[in-house]
């Protein structure tokens, strides 16, 4: 597969690994946060940590839309499917995420609710066309990458005059979340949690461009390198961050130039601006209420807004007691710092959102990385 296989080559990985080992300053630590779950997944799936020096640590961030969706919004979706008898369409990722009382969309489907997994918003439109007598709700989640396809679907529904299609919009914005993390007291306070630099999102940036990160690099004096999702991209970007840190720079650099430009995808941005507008604030799991961090559907498209067509109450639901997802999502704690991790909380029986998506820090760590701590412990005791 072109543009995939080349970026997973072991011989090149060894080269970049040697360069990183040569260039790191042994006297310091490098705490590099990958905002995106895509990076987390690549790091674990390919075993990137094995090729990095010990003093370079990956801090896993909140960039997984499934993980940051608050329980209350999942409860809303469950209510829509159960009480309003709609056909609820959503991406496969959402199906197993637990809402209140351990209910998930998969569980209510088993109880008879009409929940359907779709691969694309086009599939949701087709379901609406094929079922003119039923209300079809698309449970939309995702960052800036996944938002434009929702915008296309809403415009298409309007053009076709589809009366039974609406979108339960949960699209969120990456820059707002990064800013929230950087401003959180634990991260700002010197000496507690340090994030020395950021891997910038790959595909989010392909839409919004590299320009929005310039503010962070300047304001918070942390380097940002926009990194592709293949393992070589991650390693090369780590090298670029290490170089910036060694040189005392804090610039926005772009490793993923084959897809990301400074301005991003103008057509996609224009479509999103046409259909959506900012919410004053939105709750993120782990981050709490984050101002101007999410989108809602503009009134011109109110007919396609599930929140206008149905009664969608604001539900205050709390996370499971003892669950450290909030701290893990901010990079303040590691999965193994959570008492529930691996005991009551496993991928089969997830308590918190980080264990649900394979991109969540806990699930990725559980699935791919567990043996590392044992190896580390053995080395330490030897």
């Amino acid at each position, binding site marked *: 597969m072109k543009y995939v296989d080349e970026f997973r080559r072991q011989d090149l990985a060894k080269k970049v690994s040697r360069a990183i080992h040569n260039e790191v300053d042994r006297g310091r630590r490098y705490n590099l946060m990958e905002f995106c779950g*895509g990076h987390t997944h690549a790091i674990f799936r390919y075993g990137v940590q094995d090729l990095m020096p010990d003093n370079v640590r990956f801090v896993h961030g909140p960039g997984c839309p499934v993980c940051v969706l608050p329980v209350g919004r999942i409860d809303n979706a469950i209510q829509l499917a159960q009480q309003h008898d709609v056909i609820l369409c959503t991406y496969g990722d959402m199906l197993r995420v637990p809402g209140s009382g351990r209910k998930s969309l998969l569980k209510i489907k088993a109880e008879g609710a009409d929940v359907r997994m779709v691969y694309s918003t086009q599939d949701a439109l087709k379901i609406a066309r094929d079922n003119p007598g039923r209300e079809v709700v698309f449970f939309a989640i995702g960052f800036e990458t996944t938002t434009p396809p929702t915008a296309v679907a809403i415009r298409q529904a309007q053009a076709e005059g589809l009366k039974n299609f609406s979108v339960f919009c949960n699209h969120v914005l990456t820059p707002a979340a990064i800013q929230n993390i950087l401003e959180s007291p634990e991260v700002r306070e010197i000496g507690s949690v340090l994030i020395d630099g950021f891997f910038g999102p790959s595909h989010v940036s392909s839409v919004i461009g590299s320009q929005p990160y310039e503010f962070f690099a300047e304001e918070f004096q942390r380097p940002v390198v926009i990194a592709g999702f293949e393992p070589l991209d991650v390693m090369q970007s780590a090298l670029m961050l290490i170089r910036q840190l060694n040189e005392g720079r804090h610039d926005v650099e772009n490793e993923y130039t084959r897809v990301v430009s400074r301005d991003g995808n103008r057509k996609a941005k224009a479509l999103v601006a046409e259909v959506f507008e900012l919410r004053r604030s939105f709750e993120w799991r782990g981050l709490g209420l984050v101002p101007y961090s999410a989108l809602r559907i503009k009134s011109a498209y109110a007919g396609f807004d599930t929140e206008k067509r149905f009664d969608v109450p604001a539900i205050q639901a709390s996370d499971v007691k003892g669950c450290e997802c909030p701290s893990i999502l901010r990079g303040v704690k590691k999965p193994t710092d959570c008492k529930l991790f691996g005991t009551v909380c496993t991928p089969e029986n997830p308590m918190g959102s980080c264990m649900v998506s394979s991109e969540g820090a806990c699930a990725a760590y559980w699935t791919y990385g567990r043996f590392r701590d044992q190896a580390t412990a053995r080395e330490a005791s030897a």
Partner: protein
Amino acid sequence: MCLAIPAQVVEIDDVSDSGTVALGPVRKRISLALVDDVSVGDFVLIHVGYALNKISPEEAERTLALFGEAELVEELAAAPGGGAT
């Protein structure tokens, strides 16, 4: 987040603003509503059934060259006399 994969455009249907992409031996119908100026033969990034962006072959080459360059820097540093011969 945001699983997306590069694939080559093999067919374009202007009427429906959609096309077919090939990912190795696999073919899939996708929407082209989010990209402009796509031609057959171009590589695009596919996300949830949409082409999100074109992939620049020149930039991909440049990035790949960087991976080799990392070692070049290292070789130059390791060579006696700074490597300039």
